[in-house]
Every structure is written in C-alpha cells, then in structure tokens.
C-alpha cells in the first residue's frame, strides 16, 4: 500500500472520535507494529506507550507532507526509529553494547543454527528483552523490522541507510548473535 489514503478505503470508516479519517485508519492498521517496535527497542512499556503516542501525533501533524514514495508502514517506522533513537541517546545509549561485542558472539556461537527452544512462555518477554538489550542497536532494529514480515529487504535497507545485500548479510549475523545470547538467558 503506497498511500495512507488507501488504508482508509480498505478499513472503512474509522472511529468517529478521530479528528481525521486518515489518522484513525493509520492507527488501527499500524499501532501494534509501532508499539511493539518501541517496546522492544526501548525496553520500557511506559516509554513505549509515550513513544507510540508521539509517533502517531507526529504523523498526524506531518500527514500533508507524506508523498507516498514509501508505504505508510515504512513512513511510520521512519518516524518511530528517529524518535526512539533520540530517546535512547540520553542515557540508555551508553549502556548498549557496540557491534564489536556482537562480533565476539557471532564467532563463538557454535550452536546458534539450532532452533530456539522455549520451555516456559511465561517469562519469554523478559528473556527476549534481555537478549535484544544486549545486541547493538543496528542488530536490534534489523531483527525487529524483519520480524514484522511486511517490509521488503529494500524497504528495511532504506530505513537503516544500507543496501539490501548488506541487510541480508547482517541479518544472518544478527540471527546467530541473538540465538547465542538467547541461550544464555535460559
């Protein structure tokens, strides 16, 4: 979908409480994806809630500038990533490990090609958060965007400022690092 107007048509009339049909339809269709990205990127439900609100408010304010060059999802992700990165640049950024740390795990992760086994789903969210927190920002974003399943490699590459080939290569390393660190959280 290249134009947010199309999602209005696809979803029918959004709630009458919205000041504009566009923002209501955008929220209905994309709020889960944006909230999940903010939640796992920031690692704090309250911050994720605030960020999701702010992202859609920014989208509402700049809706007239949306040119439809990218999909509405990609456009919202771009706003969300910028917003979350700005938030992280305060104190959290200093605690994020660098990609040099990732490299150590990539090389040492001998069992990382085996499936990720989860016995207890109760604390799964905490384990996932702990694992993502230990990854570099780049790997974290890459995995979250690929997990969404609605973006092409080209769209993910554009969001991350890289080529599609670089994204494919890094995805393989990000998976290995994630798997190795996830095992450590068991």
């Amino acid at each position, binding site marked *: 979908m290249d134009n947010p107007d199309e999602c209005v048509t696809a979803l029918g009339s959004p*709630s009458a*409480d*919205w*000041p*504009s049909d566009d*923002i209501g339809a955008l*929220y209905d269709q994309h*709020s*889960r*994806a944006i*909230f*999940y990205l903010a*939640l*796992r990127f920031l690692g704090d*439900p309250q911050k994720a*809630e605030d960020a*999701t*609100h702010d992202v*859609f*408010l920014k989208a*509402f*304010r*700049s*809706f*007239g*500038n949306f*040119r439809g060059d990218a999909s509405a999802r990609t456009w919202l992700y771009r706003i969300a990533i910028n917003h979350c990165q700005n938030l992280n640049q305060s104190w959290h950024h200093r605690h994020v490990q660098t990609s040099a740390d990732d490299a150590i795990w990539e090389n040492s992760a001998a069992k990382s090609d085996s*499936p*990720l*086994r*989860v*016995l*207890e*789903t109760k604390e*799964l*969210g905490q384990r*996932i958060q702990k694992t993502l927190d230990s990854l570099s920002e780049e790997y974290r974003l890459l*995995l*979250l965007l*690929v*997990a*969404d*399943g609605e973006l092409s490699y080209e769209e993910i590459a554009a969001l991350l400022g890289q080529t599609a080939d670089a994204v494919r290569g890094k995805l393989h390393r*990000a*998976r290995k690092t*994630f*798997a190795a660190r*996830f095992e450590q959280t068991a």
Partner: protein
Amino acid sequence: MKQQSKFSPEQQHAETHSSQAQTGREFVTAEELLRFDAAQTTVPPQIEERLKRSTQNAAPAQPRPWWKNLFGQ
C-alpha cells in the same frame, strides 16, 4: 477392550498441560520468535484515547507545496 483411565478428567488435563509445558515451543529463527512475541503483545488502549485527545487539539499540517515536491526541498 477399552482400558479405563485411572485418572479423573482434571488430572488428565493437568497431565496433558504439564507435558505441553515440558515440550515447549521451538522457533527456527529469531524473527519467528519475535513475531510470536509481537502477537502476544497488546497495545494499551489508553494510547488511543490519549492520541484522540491530542489530535483534536492539534491542527494537521498543511499539504506540502507543489514546488517543494518538484524540487525535493
């Protein structure tokens, strides 16, 4: 001959549940695991209420002038 179970339905249910818990789940890739996690995540309904209030007080931006689109400014 059909063998009678020595367990009550509740016990049988508990046993099945326990066996599922021990078996757990397997995810082939990190993205599959994250997708499962995302599906379990609920968006707090208060965000929508907050956003409705905020957008009613904020005017949407005017459409981008045609000449900015043309010249990419």
